Every structure is written in C-alpha cells, then in structure tokens.
C-alpha cells in the first residue's frame, strides 16, 4: 500500500508538482484504506465514455488541472451524467469553459467517477503544524466549512477515542445523528477514516496538506468524493 503511495508522490515530484491531481490523491488515499469514489483520468471524450461505461452511469466529470483551485467556480464540474452522449457533451463544455477562463494549458483532461450516493457532507483534512507535526481536522463539509468553521482538531497519532470525540465535538453533530427523522450517519465509518488518515499522515511526512471535501456520510458508510493533497516543498 505504502509503495503505491510512494510511487504516486515520487511521480508528482518528478514532474515538478507539489499538488497531486484528484486522480492521484484518491489513488493514494484509497491505497491507505480511505473509501473514495473510483476516479480515472480521461484525456479525450472517447476515453471518458469508455471509463464511464466501465464504472457505470450516472457519472461525474471534473477538470484535471495543475493550476485551477476551485474547479466548480469556472464550470469545471459536471454532475449526474446519465449516458455516453451526456458525457461527450459535458467533456466539451468543461474544456471550452476552462480554456476560456484559464487558458489552454490549464486543461489536462477530466476525471471520471461514478455519482456517489447522497449523504451529509463532511470534511476531513490534515495539515503539518510547524510545532506539533500533523494535525487532523473534522467538520461539516461543502461550502459550510468556510462560513461556519465548525471544525475540531486532533494531533496525530489519534487514538480511537480521539476520533470518536472530535466527531462529537462539533456544534453540527446533531445533523449526523439523524436530525428530523433522517437516518443517522455511520459514525463508525467516519471514525475509521480518521484513523486511516492518522496512519497515512504518520507514514507520509512529505504530505503537507490534505482535504477530503466533501466526504458523503451515509447510514451505511461514507465515501470521499473529492480529495486534495499538497506535498511539502521538495
């Protein structure tokens, strides 16, 4: 597992990049035991439809770019694509939008992934604190994290009770308990991801920052649908 992560990191470094692509980040985290949506790179509409057929419809396309930070802001994300025609059209729209907004060099193809089952959006992340080393974060995800900042931190390594506590520490915790008749989220699955991230951070000090945003927390598990990994300066 660590070997494949090390390979991904070495390849990015070799290409002079400190930001892993979504495809790379998910591959690394998937190898570390974090449930992620299977995500593959497509550099042509035909390749995108082939991957979509293999993964099963509906799918999601997102732009792959070394330079773009907020993909959805510039039309770089297309959700809920039901068939091959929709995928081909979406591929073209993303390419046009990205090239218009950021230039032809910014477009590096698209990632293709199955549309994940809905759930409560949560965020998990890791960053290297200059004094204390890696710290993990948990909070409600999506756009809410920026507005409410309802998050909890722990220093790596986490004990299982640390993972349980940080989830329960946020103000929004009742949302995960099944607010207003919704099914309660699978808290054990969330705790398990936090512990996997703790081990991942310990094993890979060359990871400077990491966001899983969002992770969709369902009654029967949780899946990261987007991932960002920033490496330490080489």
């Amino acid at each position: 597992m660590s070997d494949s992560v090390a390979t991904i990191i070495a390849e990015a470094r070799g290409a002079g990049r400190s930001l892993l692509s979504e495809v790379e980040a998910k591959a690394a985290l998937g190898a570390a035991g974090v449930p992620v949506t299977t995500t593959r790179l497509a550099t042509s509409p035909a390749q995108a439809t082939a991957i979509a057929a293999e993964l099963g419809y509906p799918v999601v396309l997102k732009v792959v770019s070394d330079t773009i930070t907020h993909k959805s802001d510039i039309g770089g994300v297309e959700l809920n694509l039901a068939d091959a025609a929709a995928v081909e059209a979406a591929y073209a729209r993303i390419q046009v939008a990205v090239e218009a907004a950021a230039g032809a060099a910014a477009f590096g193809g698209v990632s293709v992934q199955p549309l994940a089952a809905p759930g409560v959006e949560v965020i998990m992340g890791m960053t290297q604190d200059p004094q204390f080393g890696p710290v993990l974060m948990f909070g409600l995800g999506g756009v809410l994290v920026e507005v409410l900042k309802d998050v909890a931190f722990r220093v790596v390594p986490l004990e299982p009770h640390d993972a349980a506590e940080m989830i329960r520490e946020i103000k929004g915790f009742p949302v995960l308990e099944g607010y207003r008749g919704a099914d309660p989220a699978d808290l054990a699955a969330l705790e398990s991801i936090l512990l996997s991230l703790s081990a991942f951070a310990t094993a890979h000090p060359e990871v400077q920052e990491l966001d899983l945003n969002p992770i969709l927390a369902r009654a029967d598990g949780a899946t990261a649908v987007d991932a960002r990994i920033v490496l330490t300066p080489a």
Partner: protein
Amino acid sequence: MPISPDRLERVLNPKVIAVVGDKKASGYMWLNALKTFSGNLYSIQVDEKEIEGIAALGVPNFASLTQIPEPVDYVLCAVPRKIAPFIVKDCIAAKVGGVTLFTSGFAETGEDEGLALQDQIGALARDADLLLIGPNCMGIHNPGLGVRFHRDQPHGRSGNVGFISQSGTHGMHFSLVGATRGIYCSKLVSFGNGIILEAADYLDYLANDDATEIIGMYIEGARDGRRFVQALRAAAARKPVVIWKGGQTDAGSTAAQSHTASLASNKAVWDAIVRQAGAISVAGLDELVDVVHALQRTKPGRGNRVGLMAMTGGQSVALADSFAREGWQVPRFADATYAQLAEFFNVIGGSYQNPLDMAGTIMQDASTLDRLFDLMEADPNVDAVAMEISATFAAQRWEKNPQELETLIGSLRRFQERSDKPFVAALHPSYVEQAALNARDQLQAAGLPVFPSFERAANALAKSVALDPALHPARQSSGRKSPGRQSPGPNG
C-alpha cells in the same frame, strides 16, 4: 533529550543555594526573598560597594562559585548578560546542581547580540550537561524549604500543586494569589526562554513527583511540540493538569492551499492538544486559581445535575442561570425530597423548586440547613450541590455574633464530609467586601471551596469535575486518583 528526574530533584529541593550578583539597587531582592531558606545561603559578588550590604544581611560572600566550601545545589544568577557566560562556566567548574539565569536580554530581544549570547550560553550548558533554567525568568519556588523569588511568597509549608510558568509574573501571581485561596505549591518553576530545561522536562518531573497532586501551567509555546504533547498526555493521565495558554491567535496558515491548513490556527491546535491530553484549559489567572481551588476541595464528579441553594428569589434565578450557562442541568428534585420539604420549608417569601429559595427557612432556624443538606445528599436527581452565602444578609449578623458564621461553617463541613457529591459555596463580596473576605478566609480555613461569584463557582465546578465527559475520557477513566484535600492552614 529527557533529563533524569533525580537531577531535577536536587535542583528543586536544594540544601545549598548561591546567589550571584545581587545588589543594593534592587534592594538585594534575591537574598531578602531567600531569608526564609532552610538550607545554607551564599552570595557571590565582587563589587566592593555591594559586599557591605550583603554582609549586613548576614550572608557569607565569596568571589567565585568555586570558592564555596560545599557543593551548591542551586544557583540564582542575576548578573548583566555579558557576564552571564562566565558565571555559566563557573557553574560547570563548581559542578552545581543547576542554575537559574534571571539575567535577560537574550533571544527575547530579537537583536543579534542577545541571540548570539543565548546561543553561546546554550552551547556551554549543553556541552557540559548543565541544568539551566531560563534565561529571562525567576527560577524556582519551593515554599516547604523557604525557597522564594518574591518576599511575599509563602514559606514554611508545602502544598500539593506543581506549577510551571513561562512567565515570571504569572508564576509569581499564581503563588501569591493562590495563597489567598489556600493554594500552596509543592514546587513552582518560572522557566522563561527555556533553552535547556523546557516545559516537557518539568511536566515529566511533576508527573512523577509524589508531593504534587495537581499540575498548573502557564505556557506560550513549546520548543519541541511533539515531546510536549507526549509529556502532557503522560502527566494528565496521572493527575489533573490545568493549562493557561497565553498568546493565542485565530489566524491560520496564510500560505494554506487547503481548508484544513487555513483553519488550523495556533489556538485551534492548542485547544485540540489540551483536550486530547485530557487536561483542563483555562483562560487566565482567576480561572486557573478557581479550578485548582475546586480540584483541591471538591469530590470527583458524578454527573451534570446540580442542586442549588439560594437565599432569595432573584438570586435563585441568577444562580440557576449561571450554572446552566456552564452546562449544568438544574433538574426537579425527587418527589421524596419535595414531600419532606413540605414538612418544614417556609414558603412565605421562599420556594423550593430547584433552586431552594431558603433564607426564610434557615435564618429562622439554622438547624434546618443540615436537613436541607440531608435532602440534597439523598436526592437521586442531584449529582452536585452549590450554595449561595449572602454577605449582604449576613455581614452585620456575623459581626454582632461570630458564632453564627461558625455554625454555618459547621453545617457546610458536616455536609462536605458525609457526602460524596461535589459541593461549592459562592460568597459574593457585595458591598461589604472586607466582611466577605474575612468570612471567605474562615470558610477556606475550614477546607471549604468558596468562590467570589456564582459564575466563577459554576465554571470552576464544571471544569474540575470534567462536566463534559465526552471530551475528557482520560480524566474519567484513567484511574487518576482524586486529589487530596489540603489541610487548612493559617491563610485558609
């Protein structure tokens, strides 16, 4: 590199102390503060103009540490910064147990000369494996041995609180203000820049020190963050650790490329560390002293439902609000409690929901207070008990009839002894501040926990009994022994 506890043991419990460079201009502050030292005290001073005053204090003076005719356990160095490296060399030559550099003007100045001098001193101490406290600090206070750095610090008695402070002022204030609340230190260290011995070393020592049952600390930053976290976790697993973190900022990393990094402010990370270790976070000196006071004088926590005893209707509401804000539930009492209250409680001008509005009952017949406490003890809905003592009502009566205060203290003491439920008293100074202070001292001398406001009582009790067990599992389940109650002393 962790320091062997035996070596710190010698420095923190010295039998021989030498003060280097004390002088008239400072009122011989070090030698005067150390008048109470139970061991042998020496002075090192080469300035003829200063030596006369030192002789007048009756302290033997030498020209160099190496001339002192017995091994020196602890050196206090108060020389100018340029002289400091020479004194450090003397400490190494004389094989002293350890040295505090009161001397300042090093890295904290941010200027080149100060940084260079600190590096030089650090290198000297590291090469010789010298235990160096500071620089830029006040050093150690061990009241049991009369070791002090301020002339009003307590002496002649030892306490159960080990205190670690990155600031000399906050360390000094903890010892001085603490004493007014019946809190005494086992050992206190002000460690300043901490270039050799740092917070983790003192934490390791105090965690293993049998005389220390509670650890308090003021800290601004940790040089080796990961080692600090380990030391804090280990210490908090053994005894309560109360932390005041100074200099907290909400700013995250400005270079952040992720939400996580942009939200991971210094404050957020420190809060996480304290929670994760199962330590208790406080925001300032008053809260620090309050929580230690509660830890010393209340029983361990059982739950979050509090029974409240107030003197009037307005204070009943204020008391209930104060406790609710700190996360306490103010439940209905059990039916059996209400049935018994109906037999003797005076409801004219009073009431007995929760809180009990009880002035009309206990001021008519003081023995009813024992009955009320019996009901609180027996009530299954009550995990902890808090009571208002009204100086407004009582000050003049106490003045006329001191026996009345003693009777009250007797009732409180009996309850505190027979009940396993944590109990606190709130005595607001009101407009009769001096009378309230006198009463506070008497209550404290009897070993009772007493706070100057409802809010502070509610907060201290909440923090000391780990009201939020979800956040402090280590404090509930580590088998940490509850701190022993400090014996009442002259200052209470």
